[in-house]
């Protein structure tokens, strides 16, 4: 197994772990965290594809690698915006929840949206 395959499989695992956390964890900040785990998995998958494109004396295909740098920066700005929205929600409402009904009902699944 080559390094690209190893980290490609790791990327698949990370996307799965992040996706589960994104759906199941009710806290918005944890969803943002899980979103970043999914994102890094996707980036790693793309990086494995770039590594396989090694040619012309380069260790990897430079075009996907450059797009990855762009992607990481854009993911950071999306995270910063999401965190700012969450902190503002907390300041205005005094709570940080995605549930629409104020008292949390047992087994409520509204938060998963």
């Amino acid at each position, binding site marked *: 197994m080559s390094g690209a395959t190893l980290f490609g499989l790791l990327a698949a695992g990370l996307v799965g772990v*992040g996706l589960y956390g994104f759906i199941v964890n009710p806290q918005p900040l944890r969803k943002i965290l899980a979103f970043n*785990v999914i994102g890094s998995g996707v980036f790693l998958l793309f*990086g*494995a594809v770039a590594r396989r494109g090694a040619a012309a004396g380069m260790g990897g295909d*430079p075009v996907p690698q450059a797009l990855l*740098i762009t992607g990481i920066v854009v993911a950071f700005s999306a995270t910063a915006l999401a965190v700012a929205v969450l902190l503002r929600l*907390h*300041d205005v409402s005094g709570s940080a929840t995605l549930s629409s009904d104020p008292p949390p009902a047992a087994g409520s699944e509204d938060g998963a949206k």
Partner: protein
Amino acid sequence: MIDAFHAAAALLILALGIYTTFARETFAATVGFLAYGLLLTVAWVQLRGVDVALTEAAIGGGLTAMLLLRASARLRATEAAASAQRPGVTTRLLAAFVAVSVAGALALAVLALPVPAPTLAPEAAANIATTGVGNPITAVLLAFRAMDTLLEAIVLLFALIGVWSLAPDGMWGGRPGPRHNADPHGILAFIARVLPPIGIVVGIYIFWIGADHPGGKFQGATILAAMWLLTMMAGLTDAPPISRRWLRALLVLGPAVFIGIGVVGAFTAGAFLAWPEDWAKPMILVIEIALMPSLALTLGLMLAGAPERPAQP
């Protein structure tokens, strides 16, 4: 070929990803995410993406984790109420099913990637001489796919405007985030005095070396932003009010110069963002130098958050 070190790194990354997702306390999960981001750089180096590794360490690991750590500290009081809304068994089973299916499909796709792999590396190698830079990634970012980089700089600016627009009405134009008051003789203030001169040199070096070696403006700007944030957190400097003219001028300087030079390219080389052959390197340098302060300020202010205090305390 794969060795034990990389297999161990992959396992550790997966374990930290799982820990980040399942840890009980958000603060602990965020610390896990910080370690996770730093370990991912090992994967990036193994994948021969040293430029990506630098970006991941600086932005994906460092800045993102810092942002989330500060948010988790502020939201700690709400944690118990929010985590009480844990979904039922059915939802969790369905989520596990979805996650395993997606991960399985991706793993199958990884194992079934075409051989030989499609690549643009020979094209990049054949045309890199026309750009005057030696690092193929910089050539892609600022010549072959300059439009992506321009739009990225504009996305950053829009995200910052989005963060600012979350300010309460009365605080518009004020200073972002809370004022930090650290002990002026404490270790934080000491580090905030000793580290920035070194950090600024390292940041500018990484920026400058990016033309020919791994590095570049995003990684360099992140280090400069981190140094600025360090002095802010130690209470040595304060975030500027967002209504300052010089601040707004510096923020739009990079994208404006980028667009301006792109328009020059339309007349001299026949297309927007095209560089005439002999002038490619100087034009790329001017764009990079103009983008650097804009990026450092944008990244730093994005971490500082929405305005929360009036401009005059």
